[in-house]
């Protein structure tokens, strides 16, 4: 990735985006300052995921960097899955939101490395998912090096029902309505629910 100059807002995992009203449209792109970087970051952080609209791109962990360079906003995002059809939409939404906030030149870059992991979903994002009835992923921790071990049986459930909290849940389908979700059912309240699968 191109290294941006000093005016950059490092993106801290777990930072809760500030709730704010619709940004006022700026007319004169005057001198860009550190406050512009902050504003760009705030705007970008609030753009919602097109397939999981309860989450912002920051919550999902796909927003990797926001920088201002020569008056242009450079936003770096990373795809969740290689074939995620929402990536183009995320880019379009970012450009639209940042333009509405007065940043006329916006470039959205795609970063593949390091590869996205569900561990990057913030604590805040996990709460929002659970509130929306979608079980958040478990934490994977550091990735093991070497051959990926074969799994012939579903892993022991660590997924609690997002409705009643019961830990007794079973996998109904390893794939769901979007690339990132599996389908499960609670054995106690019997409700089916979606689960963001760990990768």
């Amino acid at each position, binding site marked *: 990735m191109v290294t941006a100059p000093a005016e950059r807002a490092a993106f801290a995992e777990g930072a809760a985006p500030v709730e704010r009203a619709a940004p006022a449209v700026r007319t004169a792109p005057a001198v860009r300052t550190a406050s512009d970087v902050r504003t760009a970051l705030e705007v970008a952080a609030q753009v919602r995921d*097109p397939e999981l609209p309860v989450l912002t791109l920051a919550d999902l962990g796909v927003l990797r960097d926001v920088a201002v360079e020569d008056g242009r906003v450079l936003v770096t995002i990373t795809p969740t*899955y*290689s074939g995620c059809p929402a990536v183009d939409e995320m880019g379009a939404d970012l450009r639209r939101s940042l333009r509405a906030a007065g940043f006329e030149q916006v*470039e959205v870059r*795609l970063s*593949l*490395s390091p590869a996205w992991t569900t561990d990057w979903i913030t604590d805040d994002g996990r709460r929002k998912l659970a509130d929306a009835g979608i079980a958040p992923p478990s934490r994977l921790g550091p990735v093991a090096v*070497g051959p990926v071990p074969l799994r*012939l049986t579903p892993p022991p459930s660590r997924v609690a029902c997002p409705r009643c909290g019961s830990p007794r849940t079973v996998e109904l389908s390893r794939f*769901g309505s979007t690339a990132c979700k599996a389908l499960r059912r609670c054995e106690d309240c019997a409700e089916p629910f979606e689960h963001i699968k760990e990768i």
Partner: protein
Amino acid sequence: MSFDNAYESLVDHEDEHWAFGTGFAEPLAGVDREIPSAVDAGDLFEYCLMLGDDALVLSQRLAEWCSRGPELEEDVALANIALDLLGQARLLLTRAGEAEGAGRDEDALAYLRDERHFRNVHLAEIECGPFAGGDFATTMARLLVFSSWKVAQYQRLLSFADPVVAAIAAKGLKELAYHRDHAAQWVVRLGDGTPESHERMRAGVLRVWPYLDELFTAHPVELRLGVDPAATRAEVDQVLDAVFAAAGLDRPDPVPAARVNGRAGRDGVHTEAMGYLLAELQHLHRSLPGATW
């Protein structure tokens, strides 16, 4: 977002969220694309075609299951797997186009090459169901062999000389491991199931077995790039043996790969099924160039 009826969301012009896939942005926008000096651009072009065509062609085969899955969950699963592979193919073909430097993008490479210029292995292209050539069990046998091989291959590509291919492999590896485990669970379930399911699973493995050898036969380009596929054989054998043992299936006897004057998929020599596959894959784009929906 809430709508009084589903159709309102389709005309939600303010958000422009009416559907995905109305147009493809460049999948490697913003990634540092310089070809490392240690890598021959011509070899990188050909190798990216091999990897990209494997993913693209199997994606097309899996997409044939849409609306024909044995149950709804499996229909969704196969479409999801196809989508992951398509995503990998887009990244790899884009990289191939960059290495070639002749201005061909992913669409030009996917839609406008003829059969002899596709470099995928035969295993990806043969018919394994839902139409002739097999059924769901055969499809799972192919997916198990293909993704076990790809997991071992991508694992080794993590340290590949071209950082873009290494990054694509790192991204795809997690997806392929999930596909492999999905296929393995089905092979065990069917192999260790009823006499009927066992027999179909056995037939499925036999169907794909003649295409195994090609996966480990090195092409000169692979040897020059230091990615000899023969190095993956022990790891793939170990995975397949573990699955067959749990499924109560015998490992078939080795079958020498069918080659034409020593050439096969990596050289652009394909099976009869390939032309039909490409006709369906390419027809729309060739009839209506640049068509979008």
